[in-house]
């Protein structure tokens, strides 16, 4: 463990934390019911699984627009601008430095709460995977109306396969994401931060300019 002085930082606002855990609940329910609809197991019963999956899916879609509004109006979207700078030192940290007890190359700060690897991952998840999953889910749900909407050149099979492929991608993200929460200075430091908003981090490293003003 590091011997540097620790300091508390308020990283995640109330809305952010609420949205994160709401998504956690919704994605868990969607995953469990979705796999049942996919025929992996029989648990709740097919009709119940479909009903819950559809309800939660539509709820997610609606609440996602609140998130989009939030991220645009607060300017928090800037936190997700991708950068390759120090990306490889972060990758090197998680695959090597972490074992040696080295400090994190890009510790979190108020202005830059995500390291370059997180930025890239979360941008991919929040801007691509999740919206695509909502879109394919919505299409799956509304397939009866495709004729009326003039999009009947799609087949249910294509949409189902796309929906399933993204579901696997999300599942794999969740597995790694949950594990990565344990890589803070203590095992539960990151999870605590997402619950209380306050993260205890090492003091000293000032925020770099490239992190603050990262614009395309």
């Amino acid at each position: 463990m590091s011997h540097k002085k620790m300091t508390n930082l308020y990283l995640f606002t109330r809305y952010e934390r609420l949205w994160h855990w709401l998504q956690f609940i919704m994605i868990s329910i969607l995953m469990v019911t979705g796999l049942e609809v996919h025929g992996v197991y029989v648990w709740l019963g097919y009709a119940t699984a479909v009903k819950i999956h559809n309800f939660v899916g539509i709820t997610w879609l609606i609440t996602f627009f609140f998130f989009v509004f939030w991220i645009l109006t607060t300017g928090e979207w800037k936190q997700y601008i991708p950068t390759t700078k120090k990306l490889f030192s972060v990758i090197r940290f998680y695959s090597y430095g972490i074992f040696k007890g080295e400090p994190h190359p890009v510790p979190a700060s108020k202005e830059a709460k995500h390291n370059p690897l997180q930025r890239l991952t979360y941008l991919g998840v929040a801007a691509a995977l999740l919206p695509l999953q909502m879109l394919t889910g919505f299409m799956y749900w509304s397939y009866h109306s495709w004729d009326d909407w003039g999009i009947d050149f799609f087949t249910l099979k294509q949409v189902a396969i796309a929906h399933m492929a993204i579901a696997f991608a999300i599942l794999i993200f969740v597995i790694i994401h949950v594990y990565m929460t344990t890589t803070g200075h203590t095992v539960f430091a990151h999870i605590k931060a997402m619950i209380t908003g306050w993260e205890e981090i090492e003091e000293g490293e000032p925020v770099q300019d490239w992190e603050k003003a990262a614009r395309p």
Partner: protein
Amino acid sequence: MQKRLFRLVLCLAMIALLSGQRAIAKEQEAPGLKMADQSQINSAKWTTVDHSKFKELKKKFTSGDQITKACLSCHTEAADQLHRAIHWQWLSPYDGGYGKGAYSINNFCISTNKMHDLECENCHIGWNGKHDGINCLKCHGQTNMDWRQEFKDLKEAMDSGDPDWVGEIQADIQKDVVKIGLPQRRNCGSCHFNGGGGEGVKHGDLDGSLIRPSRNLDVHMGIDGQNFTCTRCHTTKNHLVAGRVYSTPAMKKHVSLVQNDLAPKIECESCHTSKPHKKNAIGRKLNDHTDRVACQTCHIPTFARAHATQMEWYWETAGKRDKNGKIIQKKGPYGRPVYKSIKGNFVWKKNVKPEYFWYNGSIKSLTAKDVIDPSNQPIWISKPVGSPSDKNSKIAPFKVHRGSQPYDIENNTFVTPLLSEENNGFWSTLDWKDSITRGMKLMGLPYSGKFGFVKTCYVQPTTHMVAPKENAVKCIECHTRNNSRLASITGVYIPGRDRFIPLDMAGWGIAIISLIAIGLHALGRIVFAARRKEDD
């Protein structure tokens, strides 16, 4: 203040509860049912006639024909109407060469030999085939009288010269002839419940159990429910009865009474519309099915639920005799025969799950004129027409009857043996050669003199015996990987049944690799952290 608030809440809750219940009661009634009731002139309530008061019927009838004449003396147009009807013609008005009276064949008694095979005519509406008058009582008589047999008996009595016997029979006739009404389930059933030569042979969804069915057996016809007669759905116009004929669907377009209140009531949609389920989450999903799944697919979980139905009939084993040269008759399960010398081997089943096909309402049938390919067995004498790419096709349930039949091994056509004892056919001689030769001659078709047997299949749409909704097929019975009811249905992605296996393998594979990788990573962190501690 608090008390008042409490009362208000209680009041609102009561209103919500009551209106909710009213909504449920309303929803249980099919939307088109009221219209069907209003246009239901085929109801006993509308009768303005008591046939027992007609002097035309207070006669001593000596032949069936005399009764027909009495009927026609008032119902002047009936004969003309019926002579155009399939029930008289036994010919399809739409497809040339089709019909019991033409070249159509089936998996059961094969052919009527153009109505020469006399036992077949028990189900014709004439007194003597198309030769004499129409037996109006077959459909309109309200007693269990076998009218054709009754007049045969009368003739025998008159020939014997016994006036008491004659008087007795004539009194019976007199008593029953005035009991006239609209066709009841028993009337239609006297033929349609006995199709194929016996009760429950031909149809899996039409048998004697429907004369007095429970609501559980048929939610519409149940005597403890709606008590529908056949004509409630098979509506008639000038004695023409609505229904499917060979390749001609019962209705060209799915129309509900809500759209057109004079449409026939032959289809589920007529009263229930194409969006019949409740407007809740599951109901909407079920409504999403109605474009490609027929109502019957889910609402008739099994057919032959009360009486057993025949599923297989192998003519090739017919003709055996016992040691004493007598004909054999062996009974099996359900009290039904498993072997008869005159017919061959049978298999009977009860509570049968249908087989499912894409179906646009049309059935392709073979006739005795069609050339078949015996190297490609079984031969489908009738098969549903439809495909996933045809938007008018739906997944629909069928009874598939399997068996074997004689065919001409040189001409590769089916042959039509003459069967009836009255004709001295196969059922009295057990002689294939003679019965086929004479049968083909009556059909006017060539026969090489050499016959063999081919395996055949024959389909019947399953559309009666609609179960109460609580017994409908459950989602999981189709949406499952193993033993899905729709396992044989292609061209459509069915969630739960279908998957793209390479994707599933890759997805689960990477997920497992990720788990292993983080496990190793975690282990590494623990081990290195422990070492660093030691170093300190």
